[in-house]
């Protein structure tokens, strides 16, 4: 059913749906659609005709932190209510859950980690994700960090806003076992922060390393090492491939986070 508007010179609704118009023309058609039923109907018709092409686009599962960011942006209720689809979603839920009642859960954690495991969790062997709950000294979670190894990125989501005095801000550190802290970057107190992980940092990620947050001047530590109080620490857990049992860090790290 062709409306008269679509005929002759007027293919711009089709062009709009196909996506070939430049920014100005797009905006013009979008305005038209908003105010004119006729235009909206014409666009809807073209969507019905052309959108089936999207059937051929393969699905790609987004990293779990995207949902965390959406929840954060919309201030939806935590904990995440997304139910597991792959093994990693289990983990996502786990780390969010950890972020809420970390102290109460610590004992349960130790039970989980002491389940028989034939081989240690490989550090970066499984391309995928790692996660960490950065606990404050009072036992409540300060931040949760997810590391996307394949794309060398870390997203740090505040669990509860932490108060800082004027001119001070949180800086995130990676502390390799027996090594010196390496700065990962400044993180936000209230919003999720995305940090790029350079190869040197990536190489150190693993269940033997710890994340820590210290109080630093706004621009970051002037010395390259933590200068202010350390207000939170968290062990790094390797995220297993889909279907695996949730893997956590060894007992040592779980203990260390409580120091």
């Amino acid at each position: 059913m062709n409306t008269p508007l679509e005929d002759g010179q007027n293919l711009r609704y089709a062009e709009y749906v196909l996506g070939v118009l430049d920014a100005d023309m797009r905006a013009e058609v979008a305005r038209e659609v908003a105010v004119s039923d006729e235009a909206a109907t014409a666009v809807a018709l073209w969507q019905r005709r052309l959108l089936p092409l999207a059937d051929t686009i393969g699905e790609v599962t987004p990293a779990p932190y995207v949902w965390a960011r959406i929840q954060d942006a919309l201030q939806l209720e935590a904990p995440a209510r997304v139910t597991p689809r792959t093994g990693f979603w289990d983990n996502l839920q786990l780390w969010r859950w950890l972020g809420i009642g970390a102290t109460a859960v610590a004992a349960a954690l130790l039970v989980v980690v002491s389940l028989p495991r034939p081989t240690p969790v490989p550090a970066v062997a499984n391309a995928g994700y790692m996660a960490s709950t950065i606990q404050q000294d009072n036992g409540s979670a300060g931040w949760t960090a997810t590391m996307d190894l394949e794309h060398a990125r870390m997203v740090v989501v505040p669990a509860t806003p932490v108060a800082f005095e004027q001119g001070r801000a949180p800086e995130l550190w990676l502390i390799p076992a027996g090594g010196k802290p390496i700065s990962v970057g400044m993180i936000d107190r209230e919003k999720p922060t995305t940090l790029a992980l350079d190869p040197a940092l990536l190489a150190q990620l693993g269940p033997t390393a710890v994340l820590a947050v210290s109080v630093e001047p706004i621009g970051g530590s002037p010395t390259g090492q933590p200068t202010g109080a350390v207000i939170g620490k968290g062990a790094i857990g390797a995220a297993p491939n889909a279907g695996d049992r949730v893997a956590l860090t060894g007992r040592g790290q779980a203990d260390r986070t409580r120091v």
Partner: protein
Amino acid sequence: MSVTSPAERDELNRLLQQAGRNDQKAFAELYRRTSSKLFGVCLRMLHDRGEAEEVLQETYTTVWRRAASFDSAKASAITWLVTLSRNKAIDRLRQHREETLDDPAKLNETVDDQPTPAAGAETSQEYRRLQQCLEELEPQQQSSVREAFFTGATYNELAARCKVPLGTMKSWIRRSLMQLRTCLDQ
């Protein structure tokens, strides 16, 4: 994709309507069922995972805010969602197309330009019909329409990529669109 069955479509429609009534659980379930599809769409257009993640986030925050305006009589939920993500991705491309297109590093994550459905993807009856109509087009015109749809490129960009004058590209696409309409509306 899994939304080819009428039952699944109805279910998504229902979830989106519930989200429109501020049902967070329905919204979370909608995300669980559709985000991989929409992320595939964003990634295909933007070629950059970080940008695709941002656009996906924008898409779903808009979904939550606008879900009440969804009308299942006009479009199915999945069409509504895919359209929204495509529009956001195209807007993003228009905002800073230079960086995205001129940086070869950004092409690394290109999802293969599949002329046929991704392995394992089920296609809808609507797709098969569209495919038949596309095959009636001249090969060059057919590939221009696909390129346009999947990459969100402007006429200018398409003409440059295919090394033809702008006028030629416009007439290829417009002729194709008219032909498709005739074929599909039979």
